[in-house]
């Protein structure tokens, strides 16, 4: 179950985790992009976390909308509109709810996934964060409960690592063509972390990946 409280805790935890992983994500982006994905994400979720700290929100919709606006105004780059879009879709999906069950979480994630596809005009397999959101969303839809949530994390992590082996055809890494093979997509890694933290906040006890070395 996702409550106002767990969602707030998730944002705080994800922001903290991004701060830790900032250099790893920047380094990855440096190899196949412009080296700012960690900085962008850490800055954005720090802003979002600060924005919601000490505030009370009427419902999950209002909370997600506030996060979306904070991200939109602070991230920039490709990841800003994308993560902001995900939260806007959450806001639409969970409008007027103060808590939602895993079925509704699955719907929200599916809507977010759809929003990401529309915003970025990418398909699965192009070495973007869609490669992670899509299987995670599918796992959750197939089994909308605690186990599905854990399965989503497993699928997300696997997909993030698998992004290493394919060339990018969307995003900045696409300019590198075949040279982008051999490095994980930074947005896919930040997305896998997203699902790790979301699962940890909602079902708890998630074993978190240490991306430090495995990402390369």
């Amino acid at each position, binding site marked *: 179950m996702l409550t106002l409280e767990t969602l707030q805790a998730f944002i705080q935890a994800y922001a903290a985790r991004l701060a830790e992983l900032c250099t790893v994500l*920047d*380094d990855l982006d*440096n*190899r*196949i*992009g*412009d*080296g*700012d994905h960690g*900085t*962008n994400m850490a*800055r954005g979720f720090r802003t979002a976390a600060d924005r919601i700290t000490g505030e009370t929100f009427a419902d999950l919709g209002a909370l997600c909308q506030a996060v979306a606006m904070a991200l*939109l*105004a*602070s*991230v*920039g*780059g*490709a*990841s*800003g*509109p*994308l993560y902001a879009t995900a939260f806007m879709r959450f806001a639409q999906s969970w409008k007027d709810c103060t808590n939602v069950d895993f079925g509704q979480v699955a719907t929200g994630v599916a809507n977010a996934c759809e929003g990401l596809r529309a*915003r*970025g005009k990418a398909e699965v397999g192009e070495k973007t964060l869609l490669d992670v959101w899509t299987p995670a969303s599918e796992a959750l839809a197939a089994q909308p409960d605690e186990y599905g949530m854990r399965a989503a994390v497993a699928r997300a992590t696997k997909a993030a690592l698998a992004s290493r082996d394919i060339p990018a*055809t*969307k*995003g*900045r890494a*696409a*300019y*590198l*063509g075949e*040279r982008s093979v051999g490095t994980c997509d930074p947005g896919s890694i930040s997305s896998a972390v997203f699902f790790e933290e979301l699962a940890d906040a909602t079902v708890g006890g998630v074993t978190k990946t240490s991306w430090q070395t495995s990402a390369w």
Partner: protein
Amino acid sequence: MKKLMNQPDQYVDQMLEGIVAAHPELKRIAGTQVIVRAHPKAKVALVSGGGSGHEPAHAGYVGVGMLDAAVSGSVFTSPTPDQVLSAIRAVDQGQGVLLVIKNYTGDVMNFEMAADLASMEGIAIEKVIVADDVAVENSTYTVGQRGIAGTVFVHKIAGAAAEAGMDLATVKRIAEKVIANVHSMGMALSPCTVPASGKPSFVLGEDEVEIGIGIHGEPGTHRENLRLADEIVDTLLDRILAHSGVVDGDEVAVMLNGLGATPQSELYIAYRRVAERLRARNIAVHKALVGEYMTSLEMAGFSISLLKLDDELMSLLDAPADTPAYRQS
């Protein structure tokens, strides 16, 4: 890499403060990273921008005959939609606003979101996307070519059209004509370092160069050994000419753009070869721009942009401009 800076997180803010301090004809919209003309004019407005680190692009092109506003993101990071929206609101004179966007996913998404918000407010808004970099193959399945230094020709020529009082549709048509006719390619002798990260964007051996690089420190399409300036120019120019559709007898404008650390002497050495090659092909250079127009922090290297001209583009290119980084009368 040593940087002349204070706190890295104030890099862009302090740069913008410096720009408005040095150029009283520009002003900054309070609380934003938007630079506008101090003396706006009733006409179609042009807004451009992108990540910082490309100076003089884009704030240096705000002024008479070019842009009305430039939006600066963090270094190499697209500005956010709210910033772009502030710029649009500030410059709209009721005759509409044209966004000049460089083709990067981030820039396109952030500017498009701002455009959506602006139209919801009833502002007539159009956009063009510059994709002049022939290093990257274009295809409907990929992200398309990048927007690089050729963008400055769009600012200049569409800016002259707007300054002349043309309407939004016409200014957009002209901007698209420039985009269809400008082709660029760049190379790097050394990387650059984003202030916040402090690490070079890539590492090159003493004899290596990157060919086909963008303007954000990204690696290029391939790496090769350093060769003579003439040979490097030929590599870029051959590919540009092949993509450009420029033929013997055409008239062009050329930009030989330094990426940040390359001395002007070397840019002229490279330009000499471009001129020699074009002369041999009977292609007339109507205007040559040699200098730093769209940089990548302190990267050493250069790009060549070739713009095929017709009478309309030529007369707009020749129109006066008065901005910090581009002046002609």
